[in-house]
C-alpha cells in the first residue's frame, strides 16, 4: 500500500485517507462482523493433523489489499501468455515432444517427472485446453510481479476470493462504492461457460459434475460452493460409473450421462484401472471414457508435469520457444539442485535461501533459511545431499507487505495473491485473486494449511 513510511501509493491514497478517518474501533467492529459471518455461513477449511479443528475458519483480514487497474492489466497479460504457453507445452510433451527433441528442456526432467502420465501419451484434449482452471501464485517484489508457482492440477481458494469479497464489501460499503472496485462475483458464471465449452462433441446443454474426494477433504466447502455456483451436481466417485465408454451418475430417476467433470481429486486417484489401483475415490473406466472423447475432464490428467518445481524454472524458455515472445511475467530466480553447481551454491547459502522439495506443495517440506536454526539447516543439508534432484532453491524474497488489522492496530504482514485463469474456447480472468496473508509477524509462509489467512484484493480504477 505504501511506497515509503506513511506515503501511500497513488491508487491507495483515497482509501488510505478514508480508512484513517474511521473512528478507532470501527475497523475492529467490521473485523468482528466479517469473522462472525464466516462462522455463521460455515466457510471453513480443514487443517490436516489437527483433529479438534476439523472445520476451521480461514481468518480474514478486513483491510483490503489494493491494486491499480493498470497494474492488473499488466499482470493479466502476463498470465494469459503464460497459460497459453503451458497448454502448448502439455500438448507437446504428451504429443510430438518437439521441445524435448530440440533440447530446450532436458528430456529426463519431463519424462522422469512423477507427474508425467504415460497414460496421456497421444491423447488429444478438446480445444487443447489441458489446464482449464489455473491458480497462479504471484508475489510482488521490489522489481515487480513474480510467479512463485503455477498450480495446474486442482488449485483451490477461489471460493474464498468470492466469500472474502462478499464479507468485506458488506463491512466497508461506502468505501467500496466510491472505489470503483472491479467485480469478481461473476466467477461462477465464467467457470460454467468455460466448462460448457469443453462439452464432448459440442453436446448442447451438457451435464456438469464436480467430482470431490468427499466431505473430509480440506477444500470441501469450496467444492460445494463451486458446484452450487456452476449448477453442477456434487459427486463422489461412488456416484459415477462407466458403461460402454460413457460416464453416468446415479440419480433418483435412473442413470444420467455426464459430459463434463470438474474434478477436484488428484490424477493418482482418478481411475483405479489406470492409476492407483487402491483408489476408492475414483471411477473405474473413467480414463477410457475420457480417451474416447466421451467425457471431458477439467483439468486434464497429467497437467502436474508442467507445475513441477523443476520444470517451472524453464517456463520463460518455453514462452520463447512456443510463442517467440519475451515473457511478460518473470519467475523467481530458481536453482535446480540436480545441477552440481546449483547444489553447491544452495549448500553454501542455506541461511539466505528458501529450499523446497520438488514434489511437495502446501508449504510442506520446505526450509526458510533466514528463519531456521543451525541444526535445522544441518539436518536439511543431509537430506538435500542424499537426493539433490528432489530440491530447488530460491532467494528469500522481500515479499510485499500489506496493512492488516492485528489486535486493533494496523500492522504490516506479508502477502501474495492467486488469480484464477480459465481456459476454454478463450481465456478468461476475473480481476481479483485469493490474497493470502502470513498472519504471524515476519512470517513468509502464507499457505492456508500453515496458518495463513486471507484478504480481499481490490482492483481499483482510480
Amino acid at each position, binding site marked *: 500500500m505504501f511506497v515509503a513510511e506513511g506515503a501511500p501509493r497513488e491508487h491507495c491514497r483515497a482509501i488510505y485517507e478514508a480508512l484513517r478517518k474511521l473512528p478507532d474501533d470501527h475497523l475492529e467492529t467490521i473485523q468482528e462482523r466479517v469473522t462472525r459471518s464466516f462462522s455463521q455461513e*460455515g466457510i471453513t477449511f480443514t487443517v490436516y493433523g489437527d483433529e479438534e479443528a476439523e472445520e476451521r475458519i480461514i481468518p480474514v483480514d478486513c483491510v483490503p489489499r489494493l491494486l491499480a487497474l493498470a497494474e492488473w492489466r499488466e499482470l493479466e497479460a502476463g498470465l494469459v501468455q503464460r497459460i497459453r504457453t503451458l497448454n502448448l507445452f502439455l500438448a507437446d510433451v504428451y504429443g510430438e515432444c518437439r521441445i524435448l527433441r530440440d533440447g530446450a528442456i532436458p528430456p529426463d526432467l519431463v519424462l522422469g517427472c512423477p507427474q508425467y502420465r504415460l497414460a496421456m501419451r497421444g491423447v488429444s484434449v478438446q480445444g487443447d485446453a489441458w489446464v482449464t482452471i489455473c491458480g497462479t501464485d504471484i508475489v510482488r517484489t521490489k522489481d515487480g510481479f513474480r510467479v512463485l508457482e503455477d498450480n495446474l492440477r486442482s488449485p483451490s481458494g477461489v471460493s474464498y476470493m468470492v466469500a472474502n469479497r462478499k464479507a468485506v464489501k458488506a463491512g466497508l460499503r461506502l468505501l467500496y462504492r466510491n472505489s470503483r472496485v472491479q467485480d469478481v462475483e461473476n466467477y461462477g458464471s465464467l467457470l460454467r461457460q468455460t466448462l460448457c465449452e469443453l462439452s464432448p462433441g459440442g453436446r448442447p446443454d451438457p451435464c456438469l459434475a464436480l467430482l470431490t474426494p468427499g466431505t473430509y477433504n480440506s477444500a470441501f466447502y469450496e467444492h460445494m460452493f463451486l458446484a452450487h455456483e456452476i449448477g453442477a451436481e*456434487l459427486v463422489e466417485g461412488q456416484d459415477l460409473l462407466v458403461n460402454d465408454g460413457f460416464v453416468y451418475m446415479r440419480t433418483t*430417476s435412473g442413470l444420467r450421462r455426464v459430459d463434463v467433470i470438474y474434478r477436484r481429486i488428484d490424477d493418482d486417484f482418478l481411475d483405479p484401472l489406470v492409476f492407483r489401483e487402491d483408489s476408492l475415490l475414483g471411477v473405474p473406466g473413467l480414463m477410457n471414457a475420457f480417451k474416447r472423447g466421451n467425457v471431458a475432464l477439467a483439468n486434464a490428467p497429467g497437467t502436474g508435469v508442467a507445475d513441477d518445481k523443476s520444470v517451472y524454472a524453464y517456463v520463460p524458455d518455453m514462452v520463447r520457444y512456443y510463442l517467440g515472445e519475451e515473457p511478460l511475467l518473470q519467475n523467481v530466480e530458481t536453482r535446480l539442485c540436480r545441477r552440481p553447481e546449483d547444489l553447491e551454491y544452495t549448500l553454501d547459502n542455506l541461511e539466505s535461501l528458501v529450499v523446497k522439495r520438488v514434489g511437495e506443495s502446501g508449504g510442506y517440506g520446505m526450509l526458510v533459511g533466514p528463519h531456521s536454526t543451525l541444526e535445522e539447516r544441518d539436518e536439511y543439508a543431509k537430506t538435500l545431499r542424499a537426493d539433490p534432484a528432489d530440491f530447488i532453491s530460491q532467494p528469500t524474497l522481500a515479499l510485499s507487505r500489506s496493512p492488516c488489522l492485528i489486535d486493533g492496530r494496523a500492522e504490516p504482514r506479508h502477502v501474495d495473491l492467486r488469480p484464477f485463469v480459465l481456459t476454454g474456447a478463450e481465456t478468461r480472468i476475473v480481476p481479483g485473486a485469493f490474497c493470502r496473508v502470513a498472519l504471524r509477524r515476519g512470517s513468509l509462509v502464507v499457505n492456508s494449511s500453515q496458518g495463513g489467512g486471507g484478504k480481499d484484493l481490490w482492483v481499483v480504477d482510480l
Partner: protein
Amino acid sequence: MLSRSAQGVYWMARYLARAGYLSRLLELQVQFLVDRPVDEIHFGWKRIYRCMKRFPPSGEEFLAEADEFALADAFTLADDLTFERSNPDSVRSALARGRENARQMRHCISGEMWTCLNAAWLRIRDLEAVDIWRTPEVFYAKTRSEIHNFVGVADATMYRGAAWRFMRLGRAVERAQLAASLLRAQMELSRRAERRTLGWASMLRTHHALEAYGRVYGADMQPDRVLDLLVADPSLPGSVLATVQAAATELAGLDGGPGVDADAAARRLAGRAEALILYDWPEAPAPEELLEQVDRCVRRLHDAVLGAFVDYPIEDSPLR
C-alpha cells in the same frame, strides 16, 4: 437429482424432525418437574425412553419394571437425552447429524436454510447440561423453535424440486414414526397405570393439540378421544394420519424413480398406512395392534423409499 444428495436431504429432515420432537418432549417433561406428582414425572420419563427405544443410563432394569426412574435423577436423564454424544438420538446428536447432512448437501438447499440451521448448531455445540439447568425449559423451547424456524425458512425459500420432495418425505416419515411410537408407549404404560387418565393431557400438549381438542371435543378429557384426535384427525398437522398423508403426497409428486413403477412399493405402503387409519381405525377392536401395523408400514416405507430412489439395482436402470 443425484441419489446420494436425495438421501442426504432426506436424512437431514429426519434428524431435524427427531431433534425437534425430542426437544418438545423434554420441554414438557422438565416443566413437570416443577409441579407434578412423582408418579406422573416417572411416567413421563418412561414414555420418552420407550418412544426413543432407549434404556436409561442406569441400566436395563427398565424392562423388568424396576423403577429405575425413581433412582435416576432428572438431570442425568435429561443429559442423556440431550447432550450425550454416544446417544445417536440425543437432541445434540440428532441436530449434529441433521446439520452435517445439510453441510454436505448445501448446494441442494437454500442459503437461508443453511445459515438458520448452522446458527442453531453453533449455539448448542459447546453447551453442556449444567449450562442449561437453571432454566432447561427455555433451552428446549428455543431449540424446538429453531427447528420450526428452519422448516418455515425452507417453506419460504427452497426451490420446489426433487430435493424439496425428499426433504418433506423425510420429515413426514420421521414424524409418523415418532408419533406412532409415542402413542404406543402411552397406551402400553397407561394400561398398567393406576390412573387411567395419566399422561393423556401431555400427549395433546406434545403435539400442540390442546386447543384443537377443546375445539373438537370440548373440555372433557377422555383418553379414547385424545387417541382418536392424535391418530386420525387429518387436520392436526402432527397426527399419524396427517403425517402419513404428507408422505403419500410427496411420493406422488416425485417423478417415479428410475424404472416403471420403481416406487410402487413405497406408494403402496404409504397408501396402506393411510387406509388402515381411514377405514379400520374407527371401529378397530384392538387399537394398539392396529397402531403397531401402521408403525410397521411406515418403517417399511423408509426402506422402500431408499430402495426405489437410492439403492436401486443399476442393471435394469434406463440410461438417460
